[in-house]
């Protein structure tokens, strides 16, 4: 019995040991969590900057396919998903389908990241006060861009601006108010970097934050002003647009800077990065991204911009919608090709548009001709009336900004959607999850 007692005591001890464990407080084994930025250092703030820049590109293909298909610029078809045609062209838009929800959620995810960046900057005692405005300038500018992307799809349905509290997101505001707020946000961002900071050699210093390669060659504040000019056009504030252009990288001297100068979404095949999601091989089957044949047939045959498409070996046909095309989009010729966020060519056309509205036609035509010449076309020789010049400006935008998400918005701005086709959708539906909140 002694032995039994001894063993018994030891066994009871085992039971006590087994049960006496206290489980430690848990941290995520795989990723930083919110506590990581409670008092962030500059490396952690930079992570949020890079994360936001990377996120800006997510679902870009879904956004572009959505607006470009509805804008009748392109035909998109997938052998595994009929909805690009059945919904976007023929039927109704679904408020819970990928084309509605995915770009919407992706843009607000960037916005959330930027709100967290702003909060982290404000709470940080580890970064210098002098460096804080750079982060805030960045955050406000990119946030404005992301909100504008949401508004571009939501249009008259409006968008939410105040979304920092996930338990209580702010109200949906109408399109006008949202555009004003976006304009103000850009101005706010600009204020943080308005004053030129010079280095030892007298060169203007850019933000002291490492951005993506897509912003090399321009100053970040110039990017901010370029976006502001785009928003000003949307708000029909033409004088403002011209002012903003002056502070941007806008130039009519195309010898100095090409039309392609600007800010870009950039891609790589590195770890954690993504490749150009709009790239498809020529003559691809299964997934098709094609130019609307009108875009080709209505072009001046000499237009060099026609190299944005390439003729297919076998044409694409879609019986139900009667859509067909023989032209692959060949705008991005490899999977690392950058996608413009905003480029000088657009700024020149914004300039032209503002000038037309201000009835300074000579300046407008001059600007249009820069674009035309660059496309291998002769100088404009049409009438100098507001209406014809608007049409000319829209045509140049159609070819210069092909597949960059502008056509549908442009035609909507000028109430010309009916020219695109029948039953052109006027807005993406408010996502299902946003209804009733």
């Amino acid at each position, binding site marked *: 019995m002694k032995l039994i007692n001894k*063993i*018994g005591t030891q*066994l009871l001890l*085992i039971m006590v040991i*087994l*049960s006496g*464990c206290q*489980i430690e407080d*848990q941290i*995520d*084994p*795989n*990723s*930083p*969590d*919110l506590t990581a930025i409670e008092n962030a250092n500059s490396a952690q703030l930079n992570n949020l900057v*890079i*994360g*936001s820049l*990377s996120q800006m590109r*997510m679902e870009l293909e879904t956004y572009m396919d959505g607006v470009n298909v509805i804008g009748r610029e392109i035909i998109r078809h997938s*052998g595994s998903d*009929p909805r690009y045609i*059945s*919904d976007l062209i023929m039927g*109704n838009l*679904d408020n*819970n389908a*990928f084309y509605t929800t995915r770009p*919407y*959620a992706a843009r*607000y*995810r960037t916005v959330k*990241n930027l709100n*967290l960046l702003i909060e982290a900057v404000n709470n940080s005692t580890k970064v210098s006060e002098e460096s804080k405005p750079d982060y805030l300038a960045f955050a406000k500018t990119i946030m404005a861009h992301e909100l504008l992307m949401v508004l571009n799809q939501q249009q008259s349905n409006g968008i939410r601006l105040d*979304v920092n509290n*996930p338990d209580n*997101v702010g109200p949906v505001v109408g399109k006008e108010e949202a555009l004003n707020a976006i304009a103000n946000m850009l101005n706010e961002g600009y204020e943080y970097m308005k004053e030129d900071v010079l280095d030892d050699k007298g060169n203007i210093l850019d933000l002291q934050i490492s951005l*993506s390669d897509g912003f090399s060659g321009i100053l970040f504040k110039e990017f901010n002003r370029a976006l502001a000019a785009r928003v000003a056009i949307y708000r029909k504030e033409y004088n403002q647009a011209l002012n903003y252009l002056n502070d941007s990288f806008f130039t009519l001297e195309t010898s100095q800077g090409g039309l392609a100068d600007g800010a870009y979404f950039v891609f*790589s*095949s*590195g770890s*954690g*990065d*993504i*490749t150009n999601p709009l790239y*498809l*091989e020529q003559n*691809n089957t*299964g*997934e098709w991204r094609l130019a609307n044949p009108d875009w080709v047939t209505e072009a001046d045959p000499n237009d060099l911009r026609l190299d944005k498409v390439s003729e297919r070996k076998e044409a694409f*046909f*879609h*019986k139900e919608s009667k859509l*067909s095309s023989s032209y692959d989009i060949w705008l991005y010729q490899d999977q690392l090709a950058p996608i413009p966020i905003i480029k000088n060519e657009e700024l020149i056309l914004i300039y032209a548009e503002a000038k037309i509205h201000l009835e300074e036609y000579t300046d407008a035509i001059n600007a249009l001709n820069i674009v035309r010449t660059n496309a291998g076309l002769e100088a404009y020789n049409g009438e100098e009336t507001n209406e014809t010049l608007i049409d000319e400006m829209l045509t140049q935008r159609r070819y210069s900004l092909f597949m960059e998400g502008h056509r549908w918005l442009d035609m909507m701005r000028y109430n010309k959607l009916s020219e695109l086709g029948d039953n052109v959708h006027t807005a993406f539906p408010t*996502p*299902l*999850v*946003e209804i009733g*909140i």
Partner: protein
Amino acid sequence: MNKKITFLLTITLLFFSISNAVSQDFSISGKVTDENGEGLIGVNVVVKSTGKGTITDIDGNYSLTVPEENNVLEFSFVGYKGQEFTITSSNSSLNITLEEDITSLEEVVVTGLASSIKRSNLANAVSTVSAKDLTGTTSPSTLDGALQGKLTGANIIANSGAPGGGISMKLRGITTITGSSEPLYIVDGVYMDNSAISAGTNPVTQASRGSNITTNQDNPSNRIADLNPDEIENIEILKGASAAAIYGSRANAGVVIITTKKGKNGKTKINFNQDIGYTSILNPLGSREFTVDKVRNLFDLTTEKGIEAANAEVALFQKAQQEGRLIDWEQEMYGNIGLITKSNLSLSGGTEKTKFFISGTLNDEEGIIKNTGYSRKSLRTNIDHKLSNLINFSVNSNYIHSSADRGLTNNDNAGVSYGVALTSTKPWADLFPDEDGNYPNNPYAGSNPIQTRDLSTINETTNRILTGSTVNFHFINTDDTFLKMVLRGGVDYYNNESNVYFPEDLQFMGVMNGFYSRGNNRVINTNASAFLVFNKSINKVDFTSQLGTSRLDFNQDRLTTQATQLIGGQKNLEQASAVSVFNKSLKTIDIGYSFQQEANFADKLILTAGIRLDKSSLNGDPNKLYAFPKISAATNLHNFDFWSVDPISQLKVRLAYGEAGGVPSPHPVNLQQPSFTIFNGTGISGQAGSIIGLVRGNKDIQPERSKEIEAGLDIGFFDNKINLEATYYNKTVEDLILRANVPYSSGFTSRTVNGGALNNKGIEIALSTTPVDISNLKWESRTSFWKNRSKMTRLDVPSFTTGGFSSALGIFRIEEGKSVTQIVGYVGDEEVVIGNAEPDFQMSSFNTLTFFKNIEFTMLWHWKQGGDNINLTKLLSDFGGTTFDYDEDDDNNGIINGDQRKIAYSEGNSADEFIEDATYLKLREIALFYNIPKKVIGSTLSNYISYLKVGVSANNALMFTKYSSYDPEVSNFGNNGISTGVEVTPFPSSRKFFFHLSVGL
């Protein structure tokens, strides 16, 4: 030690001699045999009046001293019907034959953590599947396949027909919305991991779009499939919280307790089984037959360009037709006849002190798609040893090597999976390679599926060790008291490797220039527990108390590295210019305490109460204890003295209540835990960045809690020749963990919350009968019926959709007051209910006919009535113009089916046409076995062979269904909680035929 035994024996003998001294005793001896005349070892032979007795020896012989005349001798043995004989002193010898008991009332059921109970005293309907039921009929290669149709109250769905298994099993309805509804698997006390690990094909298939490496749509198998069904002695299934409460916070969805085979005292038995068989597609749909007109109609003939294209296509069609080159792609892709072989060798035996069971199995199976298949090697050693009267222990170890090539099936958004590519591939397509092995591009889809099938590798290989040990210390062991301590420890370790290769010359590899992915997933689960079990009889009341503690440590480390832009022909991660990585780990700790008290009033009334206290690192507060109580009562009315209804030999009324939990489970694919709000890693221009995760965490997250009440009635008629078991249950799951959709404008897409309750009500009826039992024919039959109704009783978050693709394609909507499994979609502009995945009811019938004692014919029928599927295979085939019934006109309205469905979908955004009733009747198993009698074998051979059995069998022999795809049992999203029954070009199900040979030495 010997001394001790001698001492004990002396005491026993002394005991007997004392009783002898006071009565007029006489002795009796004899032999107990089974129906085949084999001696039964270990049969209890007890004198009823005194309760004293003996057990039979190795040859089935016994001898016993009986105190007085007209005494009743009871013979009992687990798995056999007990017998009683009144004996007088004239009976000096009594040989008896025990009949196998198919109703198994005497069988012991392991319900508690360290205790067991006689089935006849159970307060719950615990389903048991014996080795014979499991693998006795046909040869299922994986455990999941072996359970189909055999469990009352279970809804088991094979996710696909891919070799290597993969099922979703739901016991008594849905128990969770976000987690997996899979039960907990415990094999000989070891918690066996049942993860489904993605092979990482998402970057190629884009099944769940985005840049994720892993997805739940690439048809992974669940890892329970590793367990070799041939090694299993029996499976007990605790279906709901009332039975499983003592298993605590991981037992919400039920517990499957698996006991493997053990050696028996006696001569060493050597068994050898050889199965050889083949597999072929179960339900080929056929292909659309084209004519010139139909080809023309693929195009828009109102435009010049359309007519031009139509003419070109017609020329291609006619050329192929003339050359006899119209291919039935279904036959080409799914028409492989796969060879199946399985060899199993087992040794078992032992002595009084040491018993062993050793088994080795080689399994090899080809799939119905070329280059797919499954193989498994399994080695098991189970040893039981009695060290002394104080200590005995058992060790069970199992090594498994399995390898599955499962092909590229299921959903994809890039046109690369075999099925998706075939939906738009026309019979005149030219896909076969030329003499130099060059495959033409498929102009009708994003890939040439023949090329993909022939050149790609999609393999998962697992090496697994499952080992557990139990030590029992019998501190006190007297007639009316025992106290034992049970210590148990177990390890489940495996390494799962995925190996995926798409060479650069595949049609769809133009951009990636070759894709090579290697996954290395390591799982180590350990469990340790200690229990004290105390039993004492006071005044014919038997009290059993149990006190225990246990700890579970589950660790996972998943790593998948993928390379693209490969150097031509190289399968090496270094030979590439672009690499991406998926790397997630998970460590969880659960600690639990349990107490259970049982009181058994002479098998008349059995009362049990217990409580389990659990904490888990997965809960928001890792150190908070959650209590899960249980209480139950069973009364055997036939055991009371007043019982005098002779035809009714058993009447048990039972009632049980219990609660069990479901820990907030990590996301099955990315392992994210619900309590954390995290940043995901991302990068641009070579710099690393952080982006806020999509799921908002919740620090207050608690386990889900199911509360179940179960009431039942077990009736046996005519000496239990007819047995009826009827059960009603009402199970409520509260604190449901929901990944509630949040406004996307918050930056998150969902948040994990405890936010609702659901209810399952159901009935289960099982009837076992022996309709015929005459000298040369015996028919045993077991028929089960079960149904379940689920309902969301409360929802604190806004109604949301889950488990499908979108409202337009049919999706599940979680909505208060509605069925949990309702499917919604558009009809007109309204979103309305267009289906429900829950079956109306299910029935199964298992019949065994034995002719001349040696010929056995078995059939298992399974009928599932109702329950809808979302058949997106049909949708894709319609849009690809290839559906087998495209040209038929079911409703005779002049518009052919394919056009009609497309128009309905395109104009109304409605998937209504693609929601289908998934009723089926399947002959799941059928077999004919011949046990060759010794006289046929011949006397010389008989000396060496104890039995020789041959047979033929079939698995999924017949299927009757109106469902218009390969199999109504299907799940694109694997074993995800709700969304079974969604199909997108799955791996079709197969039918298997076997020839069996079984020899015992």
